[in-house]
């Protein structure tokens, strides 16, 4: 099974080609949907097979390299298309294909009747292809191939309904923004790759990491590599200051938001940093930087999510915030905690998005939560699953979110800084609050929509994926039960990933001495706070809407600041985008290019024309005059001869 791992990229690629080339000709949605989903389903089975095969191997042999063919070979550079099957890539592969498969199935229902049905599945398959390359690639270049590939699919899928209005313009604007912001990140990533090649002379993970651990390399080089790579991660995983594209990415169809912009693609940055853990471990300053960015992003995005009214926007900012958590974890060296959160987040955030999709589907494309209310009696399955997911993200035991979030908070306290922990906790409280604001406004309370809307439960093809995901979101945390509860087995999840992070962990001084009592106290404190904020949210938004309104009026400035997302988009627009566009047009093109460079050249031409224009007057056309001049010449010539006699 491990050797067949290339099928997990090949099959989606074939699915993409089939649906892309023939999708528009085949009118039958079933065929398209089945082909699109089954390629991913089979891939999932292969990954599962590979997983169990790997599990049966001894711990130190759990890495397999599947070499396919030489990609680029020039000079010392030798890059193969080869897949690395190990604990980390299998974990990511399981998430990608598993959640991917569920979302594919869900999309059959969600996209029903859309004109671009075939195109949609083609893009989704292409996405899985790219994402699998990203997580399976055994070198930085293949990682980058997937990295860019998922960016492309994200672009294509955000702009899927390219003629629809979205906010001030169209969805294609959002798509373009996503791609370009990602490109800014890629710029850093590319520099990182170059520097890696320059430093280690190879781009293969195994070579690079082995050399990083053994060679004596100056500190600043590590810092630069780590920093450049992290810039890439900032773009892909929507961290400050490059997070701006993700909320806009919600312009795409909801399954896309679930798959790409919540469960898989945006976690690519986390995966990449985790993959390069040894490099980061060698650059403590950058680790600190990662933690700070993560923490800031977490609380910053959560605060914006508090007041948003678009159901998907809330979830988008929530995603940004959760990604911030993951980077916080990476920054404090808790790599496996970050990945654990990647996994649980994939479950519950995908579920949330799919649930939101189900609501939007049932409410005929209405997305404003102020126009919902009391939907739980119309769509009970959606409600229950959505509630589970909300509890999970809020971190209520024993749902999955509790374990992963707790592990991050604990690590940030234990290995980082009390401030990280505080930010984490505040973010957790905010998360619980906005999630339950969302749940309350959507499913509880009075119905605030017009009579023309007839909310209905979604078909089975959509609800079954919801249920599956709900189960996963509920129980997914048990594979990572912290040591203090599970006893001598320890944290299963950590144990599985331990060989990957072992070299990095060895470099960072890990786990200062902390008592388990401390851990439990912190856990309880957080839990109490979270429950309190859930209660507050439910109280305010179901029973008594007044305080919220009063509050928002009283702090009108703050409220508007949050509602307008701190005006970051506008600031970027005014400080970066407009100057570049206007500067290019007015200064570079119209002035430098046309006036100066071209003007200089045309000026020379004109000058010559003018000079010759005046010189040509000498040509009177009277032959005698010419003869006279000739004679003058003869005089001069003879004179010269006479002098030399």
């Amino acid at each position, binding site marked *: 099974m491990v050797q067949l791992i290339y099928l997990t990229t090949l099959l989606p690629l074939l699915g993409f080609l089939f649906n892309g080339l023939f999708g528009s000709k085949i009118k039958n949605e079933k065929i398209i949907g089945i082909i699109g989903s089954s390629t991913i389903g089979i891939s999932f089975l292969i990954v599962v097979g590979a997983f169990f095969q790997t599990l049966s191997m001894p711990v130190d042999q759990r890495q397999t390299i599947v070499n396919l063919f030489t990609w680029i070979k020039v000079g010392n550079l030798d890059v193969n298309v080869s897949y690395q099957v190990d604990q980390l890539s299998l974990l990511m592969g399981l998430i990608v294909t598993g959640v991917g498969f569920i979302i594919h199935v869900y999309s059959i229902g969600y996209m029903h009747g859309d004109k671009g049905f075939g195109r949609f599945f083609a893009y989704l398959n292409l996405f899985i292809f790219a994402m699998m390359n990203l997580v399976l690639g055994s070198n930085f270049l293949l990682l980058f191939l997937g990295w*860019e590939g998922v960016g492309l699919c994200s672009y294509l899928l955000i702009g899927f309904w390219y003629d629809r209005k979205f906010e001030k313009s169209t969805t*294609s604007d959002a798509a*373009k923004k996503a791609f370009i912001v990602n490109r800014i990140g890629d710029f850093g990533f590319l*520099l990182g790759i170059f520097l890696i090649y320059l430093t280690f002379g190879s781009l293969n993970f195994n070579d690079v990491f082995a050399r990083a651990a053994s060679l004596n390399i100056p500190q600043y080089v590590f810092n630069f590599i780590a920093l450049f790579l992290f810039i890439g991660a900032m773009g892909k995983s929507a961290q400050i200051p490059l997070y701006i594209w993700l909320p806009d990415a919600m312009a795409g169809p909801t399954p896309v938001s679930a798959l790409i912009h919540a469960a898989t693609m945006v976690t690519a940055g986390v995966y990449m940093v985790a993959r390069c853990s040894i490099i980061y471990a060698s650059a403590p300053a950058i680790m600190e930087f990662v933690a700070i960015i993560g923490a800031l992003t977490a609380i910053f995005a959560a605060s914006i999510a508090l007041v948003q009214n678009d159901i998907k926007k809330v979830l988008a900012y929530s995603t940004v915030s959760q990604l911030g958590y993951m980077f916080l974890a990476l920054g404090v060296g808790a790599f496996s905690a970050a990945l654990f959160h990647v996994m649980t987040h994939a479950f519950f955030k995908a579920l949330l998005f799919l649930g939101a999709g189900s609501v939007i589907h049932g409410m005929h494309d209405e997305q404003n939560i102020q126009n919902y209310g009391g939907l739980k009696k119309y769509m009970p399955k959606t409600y229950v699953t959505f509630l589970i997911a909300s509890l999970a993200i809020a971190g209520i035991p024993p749902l999955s979110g509790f374990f992963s979030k707790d592990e991050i908070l604990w690590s940030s306290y234990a290995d980082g800084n009390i401030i990280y922990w505080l930010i984490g906790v505040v973010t957790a409280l905010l998360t619980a609050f906005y999630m339950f604001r969302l749940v309350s406004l959507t499913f509880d309370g009075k119905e605030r929509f017009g009579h023309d809307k007839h909310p209905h439960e979604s078909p089975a093809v959509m609800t079954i994926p919801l249920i599956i995901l709900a189960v996963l979101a509920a129980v997914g945390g048990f594979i990572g039960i912290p040591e203090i509860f599970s006893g001598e087995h320890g944290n299963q999840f950590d144990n599985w990933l331990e060989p990957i992070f072992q070299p990095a962990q060895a470099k960072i001084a890990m786990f200062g001495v902390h008592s388990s009592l401390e851990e439990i106290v912190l856990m309880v404190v957080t839990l109490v706070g979270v429950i309190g904020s859930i209660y507050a949210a439910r109280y305010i938004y179901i029973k008594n809407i007044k305080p919220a309104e009063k509050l928002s009026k009283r702090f009108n400035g703050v409220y508007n600041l949050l509602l307008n997302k701190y005006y970051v988009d506008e600031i970027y627009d005014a400080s970066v985008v407009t100057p570049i566009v206007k500067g290019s047009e007015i200064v570079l093109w119209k002035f430098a*290019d046309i006036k100066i460079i071209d003007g200089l050249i045309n000026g020379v031409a004109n000058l010559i024309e003018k000079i010759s224009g005046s010189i040509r007057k000498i040509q009177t056309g009277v032959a005698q005059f010419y003869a006279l001049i000739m004679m003058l010449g003869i005089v001069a010539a003879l004179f010269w001869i006479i002098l030399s006699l």
Partner: protein
Amino acid sequence: MINNYLITFLLAVPLVGALLLLLIKKDKENLVRYFGLFVSTLAFIISIIIYAGYDSSKGGFQLVEKQMWISNLHISYNVGVDGISLLLVLLTTFLTPLTLLSSWKSINKKVKEFTFFMLLLELGMLGVFVSLDLFLFYIFWEAMLIPMYFIIGIWGGPRRIYASIKFFLFTMFGSLLMLVAIVWLAVYASGTLGHFTTNLVELYSIAPTIPYGIQLWMFLAFALSFAIKVPIFPLHTWLPDAHVEAPTAGSVILAGVLLKMGTYGLLRFCLPLFPQAAIHFAPYISTLAIIGIIYGALVAMVQKDMKKLVAYSSVAHLGFVVLGIFAMTQESVQGAVIQMVNHGLSTGALFLLVGVIYDRMHTRLISDYGGIAKIVPVFATFFMVASLSSIGLPGLNGFVGEFLILLGTFKSPVLDSWWFAGFATSGVIFAAVYLLWLYQRVFFGEVKNPKVNELKDMNKREIFILSAIFVFIIWIGIYPSTFLKISETSTKKVIEQVFSPVNTGSK
């Protein structure tokens, strides 16, 4: 044995074809078109045979034919290919039939003359790439201008006269200096070798012994001529005009092949002949190349005319190639060579696509379009792939070249600074900006211009042309080794010539 005449045969095909074409009656336009297509396809087949006959593991000039021409001056008809020129020969013969095919419907007046000039153009371009004698090279280099001048001047847009004269004067200006340098070199050779010669292989052995101070001037004379052709910022202003005014086929050839002659010249002549000067000037030219990358991209971003946008993007792309050449590492030079081919394919494809839509709407202004993805989905898809290839998406051809160039620049001992690669890499952002913005404004959004509703999607002929290009776009993206292998030993040799101990010793 026949191998020795293969290249002469390759040159003869378009020449004889062009002459035979003159015998066809003017009004038999379709016959003329089929004949032109046949001749150029034949040239392509021969170039494939040349490829088959070329041993890429050996490197060096192969399939060489040498006939003394002006024996007193040791000027010979000397042709041959190495890995670098072979790739460009293949590109030329590949693109020419496609461009002829693309102008099947769009060129209606003076079809015979058009086909004639296209074949002559092909001859000139092939001659430039296969010449191993500076004198012969110079003849082809200049001769190629003439058909291009007419192609722009007769079948061009409204400002074609201005554009064609500008094109002609610009390139002419540079090449005159080159002529002076060639003559100087030949005279220098007569001092060292005892006889006047323009034979490239002989000059390779003696040119590096030219005193450093004179080498600088020689280098500049050659480089200026090539820099105009490439074009390197700030000598690029002929390019947008020529591109915009030229007919589609002209633009494709101009972007696809003609610009490559400049970079090819840098690689074939400037570097090996004047290694010390090249090393001395490398940082300056690289700086100009990087300015070109960023400047070209920024100016492309704000263009209102699609063709002009693509033209400025060429400035940026060729900046990468020049950077790669002057970084002088194996990776970057290989990248530059493959990027020459890439640019020919992807920019050629973009020009063809703009031509396709221009044939239907007779406007290239971006603002006249919008939302046409729904109306012409096939066209939209092709345009998307071509744009992505130009942007440098991994898995397509553009990435391989750009990546190698940047990687090589990063580790270049000649430039010896991260800044070059750092700034150049920012070009990847801008490329995405201008192309995606173009794409968005043309294809996405709502239909604003009611005329576009009647647009017809691409027909079979157009699909065939672009598919042929896309095969290679994807091939190079996924399995570039096929092409990298061809030029590997040749580029290695160029770098060795630059850094050979003799040169560094005599400094």
